[in-house]
């Protein structure tokens, strides 16, 4: 296990890493109303890697995710995304960078006055692509989440699970290099949750997109670590016994600090009392 905290991070341009990490948190701290929320957070996300961020409710998981795409700025420390220091970037420049990042918000955050087509194709509309091209790409993204029949429906006409799937389609429509999932299964029933997790896994195994997944549902996290997506059967399947997905690893927050940064096996065999209690 890699002990987390201030000494858990590799410097942004370490000579030991041949490929530049997609995301680097370097000793990042943030607080609200003079109360620290996250302190000395350091970790990396490499290309094609899925990092699952675990932790109790209210520990700052969503805050960390919002800092990753620059929606919140850290009080101290540095955040690098695609090699650019976003913590020091001007808001106007961040809008451009966010074009390469897909974000799935906790409740979907779909624009309720726009149809599913306009929601999913929002970024394409902003780029003034021809209408037929937008419809084709939106349909393709919706087919990925198996909702192509909802093209002209409004979000209010969809169920909670469907809205979450539309949010995933919106995040992937521009083929981003990094996807941030903020509790994609929060508040959903177990069957719908599994459908969403399957989509997250499909994106990982089919498109090999780097991702940061925030969740407090341990079962979702372990499904992602112990299953893979089979493109032939178009379904997820369990990995052979004692095998876990090599591209999936874990981060765990506790009391504003990074309590764990390591692989699935390291998490399961951790001797840390908090981690043992959390995963038991």
């Amino acid at each position: 296990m890699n002990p987390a905290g201030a000494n858990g991070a590799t410097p942004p341009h370490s000579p030991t890493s041949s490929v530049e990490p997609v995301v680097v948190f370097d000793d990042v701290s943030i607080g609200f109303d003079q109360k620290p929320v996250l302190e000395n957070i350091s970790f990396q996300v490499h290309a094609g890697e899925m990092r699952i961020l675990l932790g109790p409710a209210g520990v700052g998981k969503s805050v960390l995710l919002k800092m990753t795409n620059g929606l919140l700025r850290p009080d101290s420390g540095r955040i690098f995304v695609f090699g650019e220091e976003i913590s020091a970037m001007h808001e106007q420049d961040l809008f451009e960078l966010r074009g390469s990042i897909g974000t799935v918000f906790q409740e979907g955050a779909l624009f309720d006055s726009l149809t599913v087509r306009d929601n999913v194709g929002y970024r394409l509309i902003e780029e003034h692509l021809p209408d037929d091209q937008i419809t084709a790409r939106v349909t393709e993204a919706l087919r990925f989440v198996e909702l192509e029949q909802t093209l002209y429906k409004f979000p209010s006409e969809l169920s909670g699970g469907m809205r979450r799937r539309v949010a995933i389609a919106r995040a992937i429509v521009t083929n981003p290099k990094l996807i941030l999932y903020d509790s994609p299964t929060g508040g959903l029933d177990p069957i719908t949750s599994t459908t969403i997790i399957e989509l997250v896994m499909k994106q990982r195994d089919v498109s090999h997109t780097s991702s940061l997944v925030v969740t407090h549902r341990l079962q979702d996290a372990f499904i992602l670590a112990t299953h893979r997506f089979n493109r032939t059967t178009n379904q997820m399947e369990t990995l052979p016994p004692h095998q876990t997905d090599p591209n999936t690893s874990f981060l765990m927050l506790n009391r504003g600090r990074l309590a764990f940064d390591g692989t699935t096996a390291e998490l399961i065999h951790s001797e840390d009392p908090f981690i043992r209690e959390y995963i038991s």
Partner: protein
Amino acid sequence: MALETIDAAAKRGVLAVQEYVVLSARAVSDIFRRPLYRDDIYMQADIIGVGSLPIVILTGFFLGGVLALQSASTLQQFGAAAFTGQLVSFSMIKEIGPVVTALMVSGRNASGMASELGSMMVTEQIDAMRALGTDPLKKLVMPRIVATVVMLFFLVILSDAVGITGGGFVSVFLLGQDGSQYFHTCYQSLEYPDILQGLVKPIFFGFIIATIGCFYGMKTRGGTQGVGRSTTQAVVWSSILIIVCDFMISRFMIGIFGR
């Protein structure tokens, strides 16, 4: 303890003013940056301008009418009932038209902006917009400012015209005055500074309505209760600022033109 409370309240107030100024300045500077979001400006102009037509016409007409009624009864005591038209046009063009129209538009649209943007804030739609690479100030705030300033300008002109017509209606049909004399006195004593005063005010009032509405919308926190609070504050503060701004513009214009 009391000092701490005053200190915290003062800091909150200063911070709110600073945030308001930054939001307004950024939204105004967005007018000169691409993309311009023309469609959003037209859509807001339709909602704010065309949508406010019925209330502006109705209030303008009856305000003109009541002005004629009240001023005629007073002027009659001095044998000056013939000047009813002059009083109505002066009041409508310089004060009542711009202020009442702005208050009406504020009640309808500052609240609408605060609740719409507030709902978007609490459901993370504004964050989603930023995450999708769109500047919410440029997409949501700037079009509302441009649309409100432009449309309020024309709504005030319409309100003035309808108000003078309403005054004429009352003067002729209820007070038995001569119609041509009423309309003659309406424009006879008007001078360019009076018209200018009436046309400068809606520009400032429109800016206040849109920026206050958007400001409270964009700083909404705390779910549906927060949306309600923002809506109320937007109407209250935009109304107060309209009256304060009216006084300052009037004082300034009278200082310059002497009337």
